[in-house]
């Protein structure tokens, strides 16, 4: 009797899901996460069967390992990823693939640190100027592929890849020329006045590194949500993303929108770079290596279905994983397992259309109705 009741409840739930296509996308996102975690678990079992389970639980609940401190650090680790995720997601929504988040982030980071080192005369406005500088540098770096796409028909992915490497070498070169700390072979530290304020957060999350970056991330996510869903500007950007020719036919300036969209996307990544390095104890280094945060942003944008709210949640979830990876060393596992999990999640997000069909097919089989699939992320 009870079983039958449960079954009908399940079917009613499925029916409700079928009515809302977005829910199918959300389920496929969650499936991608589960697959990623499973692969991680399998690798951990192969490497060290005895410790695999406790290690795995550490990853899952890393955000709560040491109570408020870990929660604060989760937010701290999550913020740059939320921002690069928003950056990639915003471009996705407007039909562009911003694989150049890492380059924009690098330029933002360098500019912020440069201002942080040199412009101490700004006093209490110092950190704000550094943050703004990082944002503008990112915007500029994002604007280049936008211009190339709009006026020279260059694919933004290829242009962004080239710009990533140009940014990487430029970063190394500029650090060595302008703000080099000979003693430690790295960039000089920003002055204390350039560090992002903590406000009351240190008493809320004692011992953690969280700073006002979290408010910036919340604010920008909300702003993007409003722009995309409530304004004419956002509507135009999305139209250009869906169909460039149709948007042009409808009288929209599709070239301007492509450039603006990449510029905004770049500004978000630039901000991420500034927030990452305007803190104590983190240093920009002249190493020729792309910063991974830009690529992780792609995963977060996909998992968050390119919606600002979803991206925010996915980014904080990632912050938790990162925290978990940090504690993982207690169990003799290397923290790279987190990167493996993330890359598998990205792979399954690439298969999202297939996953959605799979979920829809399952529901159809159970309730016998047509189920609509909607491509949640808006990428074609």
């Amino acid at each position, binding site marked *: 009797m009870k079983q039958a009741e449960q079954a009908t409840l399940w079917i009613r739930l499925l029916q409700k899901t079928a009515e809302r296509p977005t829910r199918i996308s959300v389920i496929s996102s969650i499936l991608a996460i589960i697959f990623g975690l499973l692969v991680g678990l399998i*690798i951990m079992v192969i*490497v060290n069967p005895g410790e695999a389970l406790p290690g795995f639980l550490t990853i899952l609940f890393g955000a709560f390992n040491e109570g408020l401190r870990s929660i604060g650090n989760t937010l701290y680790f999550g913020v740059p990823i939320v921002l690069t995720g928003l950056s990639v997601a915003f471009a996705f929504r407007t039909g562009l*693939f911003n*694989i150049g988040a890492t380059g924009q982030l690098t330029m933002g980071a360098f500019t912020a640190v440069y201002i942080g080192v040199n412009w101490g005369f700004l006093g209490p406005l110092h950190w704000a100027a550094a943050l703004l500088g990082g944002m503008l540098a990112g915007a500029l770096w994002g604007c280049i592929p936008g211009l*190339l796409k709009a006026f*020279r*028909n*260059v*694919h933004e*992915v*290829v*242009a962004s*890849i*080239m*710009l*990533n*490497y*140009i940014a*990487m*070498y*430029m970063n*190394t*070169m500029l650090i*060595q*020329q302008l703000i080099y700390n000979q003693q430690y072979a790295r960039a000089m530290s920003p002055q204390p006045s350039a560090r992002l304020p903590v406000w009351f957060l240190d008493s809320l999350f004692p011992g953690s590194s969280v700073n006002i970056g979290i408010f910036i991330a919340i604010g920008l996510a909300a702003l993007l949500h409003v722009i995309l869903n409530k304004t004419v500007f956002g509507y135009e950007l999305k139209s250009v993303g869906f169909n460039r020719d149709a948007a042009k036919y409808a009288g929209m300036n599709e070239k301007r929108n492509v450039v603006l969209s990449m510029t905004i996307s770049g500004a978000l990544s630039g901000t991420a770079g500034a927030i990452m390095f305007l803190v104590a104890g983190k240093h920009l280094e002249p190493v*020729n*290596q*792309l910063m*991974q945060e830009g*690529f992780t942003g*792609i995963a977060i944008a*996909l998992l968050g279905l390119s919606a600002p709210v979803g991206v925010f949640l996915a980014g904080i979830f990632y912050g938790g994983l990162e925290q978990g990876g940090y504690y993982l060393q207690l169990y003799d596992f*290397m923290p*790279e*397992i987190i*990167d*493996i999990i*993330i*890359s*598998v999640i*990205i*792979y399954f*997000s*690439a*298969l*999202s*259309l*297939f996953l959605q069909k799979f979920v829809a097919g399952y529901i159809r089989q159970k309730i016998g109705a047509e189920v609509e699939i909607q491509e949640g992320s808006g*990428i*074609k």
Partner: protein
Amino acid sequence: MSETAAMIYFLFPLVIASMVPLALVALGALFSERSGVINIALEGIMVMGGFVGIMAIRYLEQNSVMHMQAIALTGLLVGAAAGLVFSCFHAFASIHMKSNQIISATALNLFAPALAIFVARTIFLSRRIVISGNYLIREVPVLSEIPVLGPLLFTRSYISTYLGIVIFIVLSIILYKTRLGLRIRSCGENPHAADSLGVNIYKIRYIGVLISGALAGMGGVIFVLSFATRFDGTVVGFGFLALAVLIFGQWRPSRILYAAFFFAFMRVIASTYSGIPVLQDINLPSEVYRMLPYIATLVVLSFASKRSRAPRAAGEPYDAGKR
């Protein structure tokens, strides 16, 4: 021997060493893209091939009595096999699952270094996999005596150079002179027309992607053997540089050679400019030379993209119902 000639004899083998992996990996990408699948996973596949190949070489160095060059050759083949297997994931996602090819490639690019470093740190407690051998061939007997060509091609070379030249010629002939080559090219330009003539689009695209996987995997091993005596989980952007070579070479094997030569030359200049009198006077930071290939690619793209030679159907999943 004049000073200029000495300089050329000194630089040329270095340029060739950089050029071989670039040209090979770019040629692989050419097969993938001309069959219709964009492959920006080259970097990840190179790392995976390099990782497995170098593991094999390390094993053989410690447990076998094989000749050095035979070990290198085995390593190259193992790397190619690893790259081929790894690229199957990209092929499956982008051909069968009709996924976004950029996303699945990005996943591969992140997965390979993460796995390589994870395994290396778990086994060796360090991200480095050290090999003992130095695989440089100082002089090829007899051939190095040939005037001009001898010092240019047959001294301070690697076995991968000769293997690479053979592979490059064979694959170029396959692309232009065989039925398979014609099919691969047609799948990237107009898959529906090819399908209507009985070509199995899926099969051809798999072949394209797997060739690129094998060459990128081998390229990863070549990279380590030519520039280092250890593998630390990265090929420092060589895969993306090869992608730039492909674009700069406008998807043609012969032009890929020129592009690879130019890019390799810039790379060599970046690390040796302090020894070259003219450049020493200009005294630019080495990063400028490292940046130049990417900037040049952007410039070429922005002036050529209106009449770009890129395969028309590259990047689009094949959908038989869409005409």
